[in-house]
């Protein structure tokens, strides 16, 4: 304690009288602010060790506090000590009658001091309790608000898609965690399924959860690649994320026609897929959202056969403790899932197991959330029809000089899966790089806020890469065919190879223009396709 700071520290004292005073009847007592006595001052130690009335006139102590008290006209101090702790001090000036304090006065003050100290202590405790009650009330109110925000944002219903079963269950912890889940239909008929968990609790966490959900939904309107959706969400969330807060999030995109599931994970618990052969973890690497800028998210994919179930959950399940502080754990979860047929019934199966494990006195420490996706028996065949389009990747790239290179590498990595020969992949890389470079430079003028969108898809035996810029209001200039002799002779610019190279690298090139966008479609015939070369 550096100074005595008590609610009752302004105690009665009187200004000293320097001159003969008029009759006492005209004089009144004056309450002045108490002189602070720092805990480092020798007077403080004296008050604790030798409680009783201290006459400052007789005190011989090298103390700044004593000097200050004397200067303020204080004559007597009476330490108020309770259970060995200095909890207050009475500071008195001269008597109103101008007479000296008598030995009776001093005895009376000395006797009063312990009783005053005890009463003061009680008052202090009552005051602290009042403050604590107000604080608890504020927290309870915050929990109520956070709970309302959280509950309002969770889906009211699950999707209803033929041959699929979806189910979800959420049980909030008493102090409110930050779990959320969402089902978002995409414009191409696929479905985005999201589960996430915001670290921290209360209103700030609930607001971050609301922002994350909104950002994910907004990203899903333009993007259908889960890795890209998470990348975009991280870029938007990270600059404004409160300290020590982040969001784990698993994002999966399901094609109900084929059972194909693409997923990316921002540090959330890996989903589990129950197949006829057992239970496997669907792992994908990625940092939680909001921690670091410029993160990328690994994308993985899996195929759901009829009767397969994918189970997503939050850490409140596997990190639940029983009375002996043993954790529920992954092994128990995998075993429970393996023993069940999957589908909607998996939720009560796991919920009952959790309650039985945690016991009747379970103090739930964190939210528990389950999301179940099951492909039902008798669903359409897994293989897409020949003319069905399959989107392999869909993402945005910032328009910066040199920005074509990472796009080229990413598209090449994606295309590697469709069996294009190595030499043709090299040609595709050059075509993609040149087209993206044109889009970034001429379409978007290297404006960082105007990204180039890239979509890679297969359909009807051909692979297409769609590259879209935002320069639809400007015509694409068809440069003259390069003439090397003229270039060497200096009669034609050495440049102007881009469009020529693109056309030479692809099987076909189409340009789609809207008032705001140009999209260049690079077409490659796939080996074994309808019109493969």
């Amino acid at each position: 304690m550096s100074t005595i700071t008590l609610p009752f520290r302004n105690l009665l004292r009187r200004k000293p009288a320097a001159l003969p005073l008029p009759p006492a009847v005209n004089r009144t007592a004056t309450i002045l602010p108490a002189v602070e006595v720092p805990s480092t001052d020798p007077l403080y130690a004296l008050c604790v060790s030798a409680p009783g009335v201290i006459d400052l006139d007789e005190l011989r102590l090298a103390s700044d506090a004593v000097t200050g008290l004397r200067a303020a006209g204080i004559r007597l101090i009476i330490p108020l000590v309770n259970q060995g702790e200095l909890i207050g001090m009475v500071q008195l000036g001269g008597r109103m009658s101008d007479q000296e304090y008598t030995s009776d006065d001093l005895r009376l003050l000395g006797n009063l001091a312990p009783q005053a100290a005890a009463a003061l202590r009680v008052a202090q405790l009552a005051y602290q309790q009042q403050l604590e009650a107000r604080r608890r009330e504020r927290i309870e109110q915050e929990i109520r608000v956070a709970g309302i925000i959280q509950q309002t944002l969770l889906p009211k219903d699950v999707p209803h898609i033929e041959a699929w079963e979806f189910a979800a269950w959420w049980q909030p912890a008493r102090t409110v965690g930050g779990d959320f889940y969402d089902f978002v239909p995409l414009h191409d008929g696929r479905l985005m399924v999201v589960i996430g968990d915001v670290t921290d609790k209360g209103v700030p966490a609930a607001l971050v959860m609301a922002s994350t959900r909104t950002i994910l939904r907004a990203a899903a309107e333009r993007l259908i690649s889960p890795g890209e959706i998470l990348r975009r969400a991280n870029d938007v969330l990270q600059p404004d994320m409160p300290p020590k807060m982040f969001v784990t999030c698993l994002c999966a995109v399901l094609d109900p026609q084929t059972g194909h599931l693409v997923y990316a994970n921002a540090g959330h618990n890996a989903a589990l897929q129950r197949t006829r052969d057992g239970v496997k973890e669907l792992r994908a690497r990625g940092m939680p959202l909001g921690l670091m800028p410029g993160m990328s998210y690994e994308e993985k994919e899996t195929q759901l056969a009829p009767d397969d179930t994918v189970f997503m959950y939050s850490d409140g399940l596997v990190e639940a403790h029983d009375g002996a502080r043993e954790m529920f754990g992954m092994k128990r979860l995998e075993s429970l899932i393996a023993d069940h047929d999957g589908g909607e019934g998996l939720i009560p199966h796991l919920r009952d197991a959790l309650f039985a494990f945690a016991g009747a006195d379970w103090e739930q420490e964190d939210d528990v959330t389950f999301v179940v996706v099951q492909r039902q028996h008798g669903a359409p065949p897994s293989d897409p029809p020949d003319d069905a389009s399959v989107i392999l990747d869909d993402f945005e790239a910032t328009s910066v000089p040199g920005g074509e290179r990472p796009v080229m590498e990413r598209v090449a990595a994606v295309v590697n899966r469709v069996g294009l020969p190595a030499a043709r992949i090299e040609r595709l890389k050059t075509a993609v790089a040149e087209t993206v470079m044109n889009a970034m430079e001429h379409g978007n003028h290297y404006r960082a806020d105007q990204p180039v969108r890239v979509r890679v898809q297969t359909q009807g035996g051909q692979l297409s890469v769609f590259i879209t810029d935002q320069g639809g209001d400007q015509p694409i200039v068809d440069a003259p065919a390069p003439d090397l002799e003229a270039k060497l002779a200096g009669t034609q610019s050495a440049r102007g190879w881009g469009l020529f190279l693109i056309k030479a690298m692809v099987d076909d090139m189409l340009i789609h223009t809207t008032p705001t966008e140009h999209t260049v479609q690079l077409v490659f015939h796939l080996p074994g396709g309808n019109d493969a070369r």
Partner: protein
Amino acid sequence: MPAKPFSAALREPVLPLKEGVIIDLHGEINSTVEAALNSAFDHAAAQNPTSIVLNFRDVDYINSTGIALIVGLLARARKAKRTLIVFGLSEHYLDLFNITRLADFMNIYPDEQTAVAHLVPHPTGE
């Protein structure tokens, strides 16, 4: 993938024979390397060789602007009656040199040994 830093360095020491000098290229050839590429070519030309040899073995990316820069070097070499020799191209970039017809105006060899073996003796007999 971050781009590898570009460098274009004259081979030291200069070849024992004075028919040609080798410029070792590293990294990617795009619009940002124009000054470095031309500077290396200036230093090579200052030695008045019959041939200037470009080593593409460590070049992993050439875009259309890079092709234009090579066209520029070829034009300078032809103007000075020098032969431009190239080796170390990957199959894909050899493909590009054929499509752009650059291959019609320069001597292209698969490796350094073959390229050096084809250097033309200096007309002055030095």
